[in-house]
């Protein structure tokens, strides 16, 4: 124990004797460690905010898109989208057991006139379940009912942005508006949802019953998308399979035929969206890790100089009874102490940098304790690895020659 504490003490002393040089030597490690931690923190912060934005779409949501029709093995390409009909929606509603809500979505857009003003926006035809699936409550008024869907009622629920544009003084509920010159009654206003992951304003829309959109505004019979919500998060995969089976039956697909629709779940979307930032984080972290290795080479360099410079000292120590292993351990521990000091300073700097970024920039980096530990251990490993060669060189010196060294 005394041996160990002496070792630490003498390493510390010889580092102190050359404060400036020791600091410069550690600089590589300091930069490396703090760069790794900061890069990973920024990457994970970005990932987290993407996840949060996507989760704002509704966590248990499953989206069914129309796919490409296949005739035999001939895939017909993008122009031959098979779209969904009302029958598909009905069948899903009747047969699916693992879903709570289901909503058809019919997309269109148009000029909205009302409140002495007008506004061009997208108009979404949806089912009454829509607001539950999207976890998007109505702020004022109410949402339309199944009866409105059946009767193709001319009622509309405004997104927050549209309500603010047309009725800046509030009180949109009960007002009359015209969508593509067709009169609608405003029965509700949605709460504010904010931007989506691509920066689009989600509140810039008008919701109407999907039948109204289909037959009165669009004049078609195809539904663009169907969204559903699974009964719980862990039933998402099962629900997805159930939906697939029902839709294949509804589309009379044979076993050998591919799906003519695509099902996407929220988890998949989150995974896809965060994949890029994960790759980017990894890339940044590996570049930072390279700087750690460069820092290690710096330590080796200085330790080699130090061994030459202290040849006489090594000779003295050997003459008073230091074994080769004592010299090896001494120089190795100096290298390790140097890199650990670098590691600690690097961690402190990265904490400070992350704090300042959270405070003064729009970045929201998150410090990962695992990465802090790993980069610290990596710094220690760099010390051992790059300290070994110079230390062995010192230990293999011949005491007689070392004592005579000028």
């Amino acid at each position, binding site marked *: 124990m005394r*041996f160990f504490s*002496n070792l630490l003490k*003498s390493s510390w*002393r010889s580092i102190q*004797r050359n404060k400036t040089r020791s600091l410069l030597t550690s600089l590589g490690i300091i930069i490396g460690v703090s760069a790794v931690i900061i890069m990973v923190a920024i990457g994970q912060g970005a990932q987290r905010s993407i996840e949060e934005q996507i989760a704002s779409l509704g966590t248990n949501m499953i989206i069914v898109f129309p796919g490409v029709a296949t005739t035999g093995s001939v895939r017909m390409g993008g122009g031959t989208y098979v779209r969904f009909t009302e029958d598909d929606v009905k069948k899903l509603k009747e047969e699916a057991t693992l879903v709570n809500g289901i909503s058809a979505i019919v997309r269109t857009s148009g000029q909205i006139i009302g409140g002495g003003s007008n506004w061009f926006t997208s108009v979404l035809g949806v089912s009454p379940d829509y607001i539950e699936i999207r976890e998007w409550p109505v702020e004022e008024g109410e949402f339309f009912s199944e009866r409105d869907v059946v009767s193709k009622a001319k009622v509309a629920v405004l997104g927050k942005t549209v309500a603010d544009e047309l009725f800046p003084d509030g009180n949109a509920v009960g007002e009359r508006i015209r969508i593509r010159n067709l009169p609608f009654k405003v029965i509700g206003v949605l709460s504010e949802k904010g931007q989506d992951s691509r920066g689009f304003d989600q509140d810039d829309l008008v919701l109407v019953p999907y039948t109204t959109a289909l037959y009165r505004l669009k004049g078609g019979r195809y539904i663009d998308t169907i969204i559903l919500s699974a009964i719980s998060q862990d039933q998402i995969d099962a629900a997805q399979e159930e939906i697939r089976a029902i839709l294949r039956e509804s589309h009379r697909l044979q076993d050998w035929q591919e799906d003519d629709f695509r099902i996407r779940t929220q988890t998949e979307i989150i995974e896809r969206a965060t994949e890029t930032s994960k790759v980017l984080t990894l890339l940044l972290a590996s570049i930072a890790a390279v700087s750690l290795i460069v820092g290690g080479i710096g330590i080796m360099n200085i330790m080699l100089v130090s061994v030459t410079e202290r040849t*006489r*000292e090594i*000779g*003295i*120590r*050997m*003459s*008073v*009874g*230091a*074994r*080769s*292993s*004592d010299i090896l351990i001494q120089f190795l521990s100096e290298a390790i102490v140097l890199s650990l000091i670098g590691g600690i300073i690097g961690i402190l700097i990265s904490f400070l940098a992350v704090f300042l970024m959270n405070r003064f920039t729009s970045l929201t980096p998150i410090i990962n304790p695992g990465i802090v530990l790993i980069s610290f251990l990596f710094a220690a490993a760099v010390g051992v690895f790059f300290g070994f060669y110079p230390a062995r060189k010192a230990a293999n010196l011949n*005491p*007689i020659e070392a*004592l005579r060294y000028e």
Partner: protein
Amino acid sequence: MTEVIKMERITKVYQMGEVKVHALRGVDLSVRKGEFVSIMGPSGSGKSTLMNLIGCLDTPTSGEYFLEGENVNTLSNKELADIRNKKIGFVFQNYNLLPRTTALENVELPLIYDRTGRIKNPRKAAKEALERVGLADRMHHVPNQLSGGEQQRVAIARAIVNNPAIILADEPTGNLDSVSSLDIMSVFQALNREGITIILVTHEKDIALYTKRIVRIRDGKIVKEINVNEPRDAIKDLEELKKGLALEEEIEMQEEELL
């Protein structure tokens, strides 16, 4: 009296490229406990090689070397290091103190490598060693702040701190003026009076006169051993030197008589 050092037919051959250099050609030497021996010889005579062998910094090519009865010429480097730590105290011409390190820490250095645990309190032992060489008031000075003579005293303190069997001094006065040289010799004489065995390598005849036995070496062989019946007293000479008395004549006469 017991023999501290017993060397029999020691040879040392260095291979310098293709040429073999016979540094020692069969040296027999024995040193008893409490002796104060000086080894003299011109450069190239093999005295440094002999010194390195006695100090266990090197091993002989052939021959036997017993240090306190222990055969040391078959030991590994690791065992040699331990022997140096336990039994030998070195004093060098250029002091060889660690720079930017206080006298006290320099003296403590051998105790860092002590694995026997025989010295319980290294700091106290180091202080006592410094007191013995008369440097109690300079403990916390670093080598830069000390005179050459004081630095050499620190080196002597370092050599005695681990209670070695012998002190090996390699030209200890080589870098010192005559006053400091006498001063250092007085320290050695005092330590010798306490019973410490000292071997001193020098090429200065007048320094050898302060030891009890002179061993002359030439071309790798011991050519002459002279017992000094009345070694000069360094303290007395120092006082006379300070008074401005010329000792040279007297010393020269003694040299001629002996050598």
